[in-house]
């Protein structure tokens, strides 16, 4: 049993323990202990990753995976239990551990059926971790489904507002994405002629152009639906708005990154020729994402919808970075996954905290809250500044890489078009500033609008820990990007090399 299986299954085991617990307090403590242990395990993994002998693949187009665990599972179908980790996966693991830990903290007040809630949450996260370390397509798909399906229950039971509708819409749309993925995976399986789902072996295959031409968009759209690709993003606003706080944090912070991760890791890496055919088209689509999402956010009245549209815009940037087919762009995409995950986790946890006090999410009904909740107000502003890409926070590091990558162009696409799309995307820094500052000013600045607000309290201890941890992470990535850049760059090389072949 290797460290990676441990990483994947610790949340699952925690969930099992929870099912035996009786009181809500025990349940929460177990969840917290489990996720805390997990966070430590990811730090240990990171340390080992950097300090253990590196397993470098001599083939420049092959992945260099560490801590590999590979066992045959259904050998007649070419399915194996294949886990491994490289820089990109490691970054995502770190992100997810932080988000689930803070998510559990942020859910400290869930009383109704807390056992099932935490168990489902941890099951979901097991799936996520599994996806990030799987290198067998079949296994990948299983974990992917495990990550998506509990959302239906989590939103439908513990959500607010039109929760059944949102849960249904979200699950059905994501299932549609999975359907596309399944078709594509089976296509890859059959057309490779190798009778295997092993990603590293499939990466050696040069599929013919005709095949790549239809499988690539199927994959990209399939992943894109989860990654809020326009026009398949509409499950996101309602889904996030109706979901309970920790679920939104996990979903926007981590699950949506599965889409970007899959697009880069599977779609582009396995099908480079298909990528070259379709990348400009997707770049244009994601540019729409970026601008449309941020413009749409301006007019939202509900804080959660506001954040959800912001996520549509930022997740669009991830896919935009992938579509640039450029070393810097890829790096930016992965950095943006980390950065936005942290940022949106912070946003949603804060919204939950504010909502728990004011019992409204409508921006116009709040005002002047900074006076009574300075900690929450400051945290909100930090999250807002991260969102608009202020240097010294993680957003800037990621966005500058994405824009630079788009501007540099690639050898296969018209430079002018790429530049035009990049310039259009950069306009989002202004629009984001507009809606972030407007929204936050309305809620926190100015005189207190509702006298009842005077009674409200500022953050409690768990809330302070949650926000402090996320803010510290945002600053860490923003001030010392070298850590993540060093981690990610070697993992991107095989993908670029494959494209250049």
């Amino acid at each position: 049993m290797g460290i990676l299986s441990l990483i994947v299954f610790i949340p699952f085991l925690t969930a099992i323990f929870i099912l035996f617990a009786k009181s809500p307090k025990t349940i929460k403590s177990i969840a917290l202990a489990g996720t805390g242990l997990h966070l430590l395990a990811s730090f240990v993994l990171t340390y080992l990753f950097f300090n253990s002998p590196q397993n470098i693949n001599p083939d420049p187009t092959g992945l260099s995976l560490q801590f590999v665990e590979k066992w045959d599972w259904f050998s007649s179908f070419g399915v194996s239990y294949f886990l491994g980790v490289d820089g990109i996966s490691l970054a995502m693991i770190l992100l997810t551990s932080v988000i689930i830990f803070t998510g559990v903290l942020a859910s400290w007040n869930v009383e109704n059926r807390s056992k099932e809630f935490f168990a489902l949450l941890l099951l979901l996260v097991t799936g996520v971790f599994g996806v990030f370390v799987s290198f067998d397509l079949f296994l990948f798909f299983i974990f992917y489904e495990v990550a998506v399906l509990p959302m239906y229950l989590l939103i439908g039971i513990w959500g607010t507002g039109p929760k059944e509708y949102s849960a249904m819409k979200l699950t059905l749309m994501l299932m549609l994405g999975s359907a596309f993925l399944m078709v594509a995976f089976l296509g890859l399986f059959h057309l490779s002629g190798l009778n295997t789902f092993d990603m590293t072996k499939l990466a050696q295959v040069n599929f013919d152009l005709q095949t790549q031409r239809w499988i690539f968009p199927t994959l990209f759209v399939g992943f894109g639906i989860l990654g809020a690709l326009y026009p398949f993003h509409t499950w996101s606003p309602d889904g996030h708005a109706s979901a309970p706080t920790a679920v939104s944090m996990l979903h926007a912070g981590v699950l949506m990154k599965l889409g970007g991760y899959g697009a880069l890791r599977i779609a582009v890496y396995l099908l480079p020729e298909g990528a070259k055919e379709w990348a400009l088209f997707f770049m244009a689509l994601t540019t729409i994402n970026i601008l449309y999402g941020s413009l749409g956010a301006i007019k939202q009245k509900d804080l959660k919808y506001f954040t959800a549209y912001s996520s549509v815009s930022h997740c669009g940037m991830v896919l935009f970075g992938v579509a640039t087919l450029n070393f810097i762009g890829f790096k930016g995409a992965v950095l943006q996954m980390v950065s936005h995950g942290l940022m949106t986790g912070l946003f949603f946890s804060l919204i939950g905290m504010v909502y728990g006090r004011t019992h409204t999410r409508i921006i116009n009904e709040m005002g002047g809250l900074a006076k009574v909740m300075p900690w929450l107000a400051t945290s909100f502003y930090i999250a807002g500044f991260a969102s608009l890409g202020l240097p010294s926070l993680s957003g800037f590091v990621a966005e500058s890489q994405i824009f630079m990558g788009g501007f540099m162009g690639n050898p296969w696409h018209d430079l002018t078009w790429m530049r035009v799309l990049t310039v259009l995307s950069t306009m989002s820094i202004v629009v984001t500033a507009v809606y972030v500052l407007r929204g936050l000013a309305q809620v926190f600045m100015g005189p207190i609008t509702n006298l009842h607000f005077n009674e409200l309290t500022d953050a409690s201890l768990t809330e302070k820990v949650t926000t402090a941890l996320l803010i510290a992470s945002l600053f860490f990535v923003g001030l010392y990007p070298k850590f993540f850049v060093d981690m990610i760059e070697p993992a991107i090389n095989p993908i670029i090399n494959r494209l250049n072949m």
Partner: protein
Amino acid sequence: MVLLPTWMILAIPLLSFIINGLFVRRFSGHLAAKIGTIAIGFNFLFSLALAYYFFQSGELSTLEWHTEWLRFQSNLIIHIGVMIDPLSAMMLVVVNTISFFVHIYSLGYMHDDEGVGRFFSYLSLFTFSMLGLVVAPNLFQMYVFWELVGVSSFLLIGFYYTKPSAVSAAKKAFIVTRFADLGFLIGILLLGYLGLSVNQGQISSVYSPLDFLFLNNPDVGLQLASSGLLTTGLLLIFIGAAGKSALFPLHIWLPDAMEGPTPVSALIHAATMVVAGVYLVARLFPLFNLAPVALEVVSWVGLFTSLFAAVIACTQDDIKRVLAFSTLSQIGYMIFALGVASDLYPLGYTASLFHLFTHAFFKALLFLGAGSIIHAVHTNDVWQMGGLKKYMPITHITFLVAVLSISGIFPFSGFFSKDEILTAALESGHMTHYLVGLFVALLTSFYMGRIYFLTFWGQSRSHENASHHPHESTWVMTLPLVLLAILALSSGWLPFANYLWFAHKHDHHSLNMTVAFSGTLAAIIGLSSAWFLYSKNNFSKVQKIQTGMGQAYQIIKAKFYFDELYLFVTHKIVFNKIAGPIAWFDKKVVDGGVDLTGEMSQTFGQKLTLIQTGQVQNYIIWFIVGFITVLTLYYNTVL
């Protein structure tokens, strides 16, 4: 270099911000204030020592310290560092001096405010950001700190955050400058790309494409110019400069920024942050020199701004607003001075920076003096002031020194720097610039004289209790005024051209008498007209002029309705015509499409269930029909 590593000059204000902001201010705001002031005081001395040693050493520039920060690709790595050269050394002195004096002043001015600890932490943050901007060895670091300066400004303008007008002003400042920063960012992307494609010579192996030592290298510059995109890149960067320096038409945020406490206006919006644009153009001047079109644009934008702002300043009643427009006008001078310079006539470069230097002192003095006045009479409106020279002697004298300086009267500092700018315009053949600049000098002395006379002379028009006389401010506030006045008097005599020059050292020749004479004449005309109209208690002549100008006066007073235009464009057009429809489209059409598929499946399913009639005989019919169909098919295909 000096006894301490140079990066300490950045570290000290940063530490002050962190310690004060996170810890000290929760216990004692006043302690935080003192810590902040001491920290910046130390920085002040340090900057003087640094500048002294640097200019003594005669070096052209030194890269004191740097470390890798952000890597794009192997040949594009961004470092964070500290670079000392004449330009940054001068700016270090200016920023630290003004910041220190403002800190001392604020000990008095902000003493009774409950947010005083927060205020001083923000001041430290600002100082740190501005210093980081000024010592940046590459364009990217400059952008990073540029944004941080923007945030500090946002926090300080919105300091009184329960006041809706302050909140609005902070938002507006940030958004307008962000819009400009967009241009800056695209310019950086473009220059980075161009820099990468420059022939990899000896230079590029050492420096990264965005380093100033790389970009300003003559060989590199020529190659960049030959790409044909240099002008575009520089103009984009100039847009960024125009935003921060509030040049037309991005000037709208600066008057509103007066919502912040007056020391903030003195520090940020007079002396330091707003000159960042001037600094940026000066920094990249070797490149601008190779793109004459860009320089032309720069000079005209600067000239127009200085005229535009001066005209408006003549009509404003809020003392801080007048000073804000005055700042806009003076920055216009600095910008157009850069615009008229070239390697043939480099005087404009020196003149611009000289004016930046002197202006910092007398403008800060004006603002702090205004703060002292506002503190005493509790109003910003000049029409409610009057006769203050009796009660506030120190403020009066120092304010007068500043007024004379900005008007360009010999021997005050403004005379030297402003004349140098006009000389640069004249000698390089930019006649229009010279004449308009002269006219603006006249207007400057006029509107400055106007507020001077209205505030200090005549009888008190205060609405306050007659027995409640305004009194002079405490020494904490008047000391900086005096120190700045001394600087405003003496800084003109500095042989600036020996330190900051472009292309070749400009011999500090004698004054151009034409310029000196005409400049002084313009100033005297302006001041005497102001004396004539405003120093007495009878304002009937003023009324006559105002009604005589009619509609034109109203338009000017309303700042040519640019603020209304800004609101119109943002609210009516962007919000309602663009963002609103997008939100609607997303909800009703795109999401509607999704809902439609859901409804369609439901309807289809419902229609399908009609087959289930429950009637056995219907089922039997289906059965028979199906059976016959299968048989027919079987017979047709198989047999």
